[in-house]
């Protein structure tokens, strides 16, 4: 539920872009040995879990429990593990990945459409009641999504739409933060004179929005899209509560269920190496997308500093 976009659980941050802020060029500085050593030491802390995950994915359960964490095991079982990941329970894993992708894309798309329309209107139209409505929405930015998940579940259960894809997507398309970001961005990026000129030319409001304004909002739209995408991909509590059926799970809930069945004993399969390898596989798309799209993040979030 990205009603609340926060770093933990969901994602997003208020950074109002100041579009016209002057960019600095990185300067050439004397490199500092102490700082370099200090930061690279920190890098070890940030990367060791990744290293462990990769190594652990190459081990069988037996090796996992009998070899040192940051070394290879006796046998190289990566491919066996991969086979297990994709075949266990009739290939649920692939389905979960697809579900995650579908929920995230649909939510991100919905969030962008709603936020852009509303953010643009709040920025560029002076209309009665607008200010009041805006403050009400702004206040909701900080209601934790996890706290809302349960009430939403109760409502959805009453409406009979729990255990459907809608139950996960609908709550995720309301993104007050995204709307806020777009409002701030639109106020700066879309020149009033452009709009006015288009009006004088006789263009309708919707056409002005679509043909003139949207293209100027690019970086903010990409940012909101990514924030909503990551927020939904990483969400756990909402799908956990809403979904009842394995074939609808996103990857987070699916893996957590496998992990839980390892930790339950009493006849359940011991799935440690499968869960670990599955974790590795499932983070690859997002890490790749992140590294690749990093500059968009920065341009969207950083188009400026915070105002306010």
């Amino acid at each position, binding site marked *: 539920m990205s009603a609340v976009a926060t770093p933990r659980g969901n994602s997003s941050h208020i950074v109002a872009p100041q579009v016209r802020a002057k960019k600095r060029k990185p300067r050439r500085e004397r490199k500092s040995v102490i700082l370099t050593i200090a930061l690279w030491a920190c890098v070890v802390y940030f990367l060791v879990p990744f290293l462990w995950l990769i190594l652990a994915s190459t081990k069988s359960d037996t090796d996992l429990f009998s070899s040192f964490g940051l070394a290879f095991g006796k046998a190289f079982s990566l491919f066996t593990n991969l086979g297990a990941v994709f075949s266990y329970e009739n290939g649920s894993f692939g389905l979960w990945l697809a579900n995650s992708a579908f929920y995230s894309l649909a939510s991100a798309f919905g969030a962008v459409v709603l936020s852009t329309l*509303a953010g643009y209107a709040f920025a560029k139209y002076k209309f009665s009641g607008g200010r009041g409505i805006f403050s009400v929405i702004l206040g909701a930015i900080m209601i934790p999504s996890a706290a809302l998940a349960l009430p939403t579940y109760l409502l959805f259960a009453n409406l009979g739409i729990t255990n459907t894809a809608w139950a996960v997507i609908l709550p995720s398309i309301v993104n007050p933060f995204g709307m806020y970001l777009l409002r701030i961005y639109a106020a700066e990026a879309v020149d009033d004179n452009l709009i006015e000129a288009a009006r004088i030319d006789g263009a309708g409001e919707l056409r002005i929005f679509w043909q003139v304004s949207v293209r100027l909002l690019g970086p903010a739209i990409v940012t909101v899209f990514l924030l909503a995408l990551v927020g939904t991909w990483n969400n756990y509590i909402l799908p956990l509560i809403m979904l009842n059926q394995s074939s609808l799970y996103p990857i987070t809930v699916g893996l957590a269920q496998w992990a839980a069945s390892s930790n339950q004993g009493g006849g359940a399969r011991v799935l440690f190496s499968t869960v670990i390898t599955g974790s590795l596989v499932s983070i690859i798309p997002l890490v790749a997308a992140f590294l690749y799209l990093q500059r968009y993040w920065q341009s969207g979030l950083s188009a400026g500093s915070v105002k306010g």
Partner: protein
Amino acid sequence: MTAVPLRAKPSRAGFRAQQRRLNATAYGFIAPFLLFFVLILLVPIFYALYLSLFQNQIIGGQTFIGLANYAQAFTDPKFYEGLGRILLYLVIQVPIMLILALFFALVLDSGRLKGARFVRLAIFAPYAIPGVISTLMWGYFYGGNFGLIAQIFKGIGLPAPDLLSQQNILGSMMNISTWEFVGYNMIIIYAALRSVPTELFDSAEVDGAGQWRIAWSIKIPAVRSAILLCVIFSVIGSFQLFTEPSLLQTLAPTTIDSSYTPTFYAYNLAFNNKELDYAASIAFIIGLFTAIVSYIVQFTIQRRANRA
């Protein structure tokens, strides 16, 4: 709010007609967002309020009990313990995480680091990992007998710390959140720093001010708002702590009890204890509480912005 200035002065009646038209357009633009906002955010909260006024019994069914659930919540030591834990968590974790993020951002921005680009990506990468997977991974490191950290301690001849004990578990959770979100906060502060105009501190440099002094008296004040917003969101993020306790519970089942955090408590009440009504009242209190905090914060920020 920026309004579209009307260049040509139309007649009074024409102005009113145009204003009405623009009003209608603006409402058309915000309508989809508003509709979902009300359905997904407001209705569930009030539905939870409604449900919390009834009691559901296994024997006896539903009866109206007024505010009895709230009377219970406000005297429920488990609820207060969870709340206290969250407060402790945010007083410790949020400052540590943000000071680290600020430090990293400043070092990256100073240009005095070798391999800065890689460092930045490495610190940011954990943000791409879903909370579920981060928690599972760190869980493997925390095991008291054979976890990775214990293995390393034993390897160098030191007694292994029990990272899952009553005293340490909260710290262990803080570590997971910090690992995950430092990079995200760093990127935001860094983005803000990049757009601080060079002229601001060039002259200071000419005057012979050291890097630390420049950071302290020029850069940090310039990105104060970015930091402030990071603070707010991290604080609110703490309120929805759920994934970490729910997944670490298998590893430390008696340390993390069913009421460890308010959100986790609400979940357990609803789904394990069949006390949906009481869970609804807890969720409503959390929602109301954070909404109030949120509005106070918005109000303060707005006033400050108006003063500036």
